[in-house]
């Protein structure tokens, strides 16, 4: 449970939003030539990262617009919010020290301000 700073509506409770899963998965350009394994990879396989993850969110009970979020899945801290279609930003986040390690604080009600692109 955390707050999300919707770029259009401002800070709202997470329950107003729907998570659309991992961001920056591009639909294959040549679907007819894909093997079954490549289709499976596109459709089903996910990074499911513990740490800094890029994902899509939709403000489904608000403005109903999509945007991208950089979130630390080990703490639920939101590090950056940016527009759909923008490149994934380089973010040095507070990743867990060991791959399965636990953060000192399990979860936080962090939010982040939305930086408009010039």
């Amino acid at each position, binding site marked *: *449970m955390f707050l999300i700073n919707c770029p259009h509506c401002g800070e709202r409770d997470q329950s107003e939003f729907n998570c659309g899963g991992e961001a920056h998965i591009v639909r294959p350009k040549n679907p007819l030539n894909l093997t*079954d394994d490549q289709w499976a990879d596109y459709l089903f396989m*996910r990074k499911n990262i513990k740490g800094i993850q890029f994902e899509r969110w939709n403000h489904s009970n608000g403005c109903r617009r999509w945007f991208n979020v950089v979130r630390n*899945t080990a703490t639920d801290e939101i590090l950056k919010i940016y527009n759909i279609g923008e490149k994934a930003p380089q973010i040095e986040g507070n990743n867990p020290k060991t791959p399965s390690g636990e953060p000192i604080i399990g979860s936080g009600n962090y939010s982040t301000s939305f930086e408009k692109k010039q």
Partner: protein
Amino acid sequence: MNKKPKKYSVFSLIKNAFSYHENWQPAWDSPEPKKEYEAIIIGGGGHGLTTAYYLAKNHNIKNIAVIEKGWIGGGNTGRNTTIIRSNYLWDQSAALYEHALKLWEGMSQELNYNVMFSQRGVMNVAHTLHDVRELKRRWHANRLNDIDCEWLNTQQVKKFCPVINTSQNIRYPVLGATLQRRAGTARHDAVAWGYARGANAMGVDIIQNCEVTNINIKEGNVTGIETTKGLIKSKKIGVVAAGHSSVIANMVGIRLPLESRPLQALVSEPVKPIIDTVVMSNTIHAYVSQSDKGELVIGAGTDGYTSYTQRGGFNIVEDTITAVVELFPLFSRMKMLRHWGGIVDICPDASPIVSKTHINGLYFNCGWGTGGFKATPGSGWVFAHTIANDEPHALNAPFNINRFSSGELVDEHGAAAVAH
């Protein structure tokens, strides 16, 4: 080293009573890891411990280590709502879960450890016409698979579970239910402890507080693991890391179709026996049973996003409590005592992955999502077979990772939903 554990009995209980229960031997040892093992199991939850137990018992592989990041049974094994049932829709899942249920029935005897398995029945309630059709379909599918299942109409539901609200004037009235009488609950910690004790007695090393940081691979074969307690060599590695399966898979570049999400549960203050079965409803997302201590055990849903925080949103709990109170108005003034979350690895088809991988000697047992507890012994049984023979058991062959490429998915969203 592994001393043979003394058998628990009424005589050992009396004997130890004379020394104020201060001289019980530890149920399992805590050794330092050896340099090399014949097989390594990553993850000391129920599924990992049963895998080690059946590797030792059924396949005569004794030189095994179970590597656990925290303490055994401290993950989802100690966080679930302990419901055990096998009323799944498809043949593949029904066979796997029924195999597990049969192992549950003999578990306390086999382990000489009381897992408090109580076959109090699990009732799946229907609230809409669609529910009735869907549950009747599952009832018939179960009967064709030799799994006990009955259909109850509204009056029979009320008779079987008198505290349920069968008023037809509520938003989601009870229109009927399926009942699996052999289903029930068990003491979840005892399952982990019993299998740990049993495996340890056969020579399995249980290594707690040891996190795996990397998996070493040479020319397509696993050679060992790097841990916070140093390098451990092995040619066979089974990963049973539940919510953290993807973290392990990402170490070796294996892509899994999993999303790890928080799943919450809560218990109430203890009260006198009031509900002697398990009541589940998919439609309004509620399920409730009563523990031997008298607490109501209530399971909530998963959050809609990936998170490893072991805590979820309050809105999820609120939704579940709303549904429970409508179904059981007399619970409305009870206080909830404890509330927690676990990280579940959810598969797109709500079925597990118990499979070999393209790396020789590396095996994955994951994707049990919200309903792995009931499968604990069966999962270990088939996974041990897979590791020992380098070939899947007939029961877990359909749960291969390749099903996502072939399209042979085992879609159990209907049967897997809600009851965890």
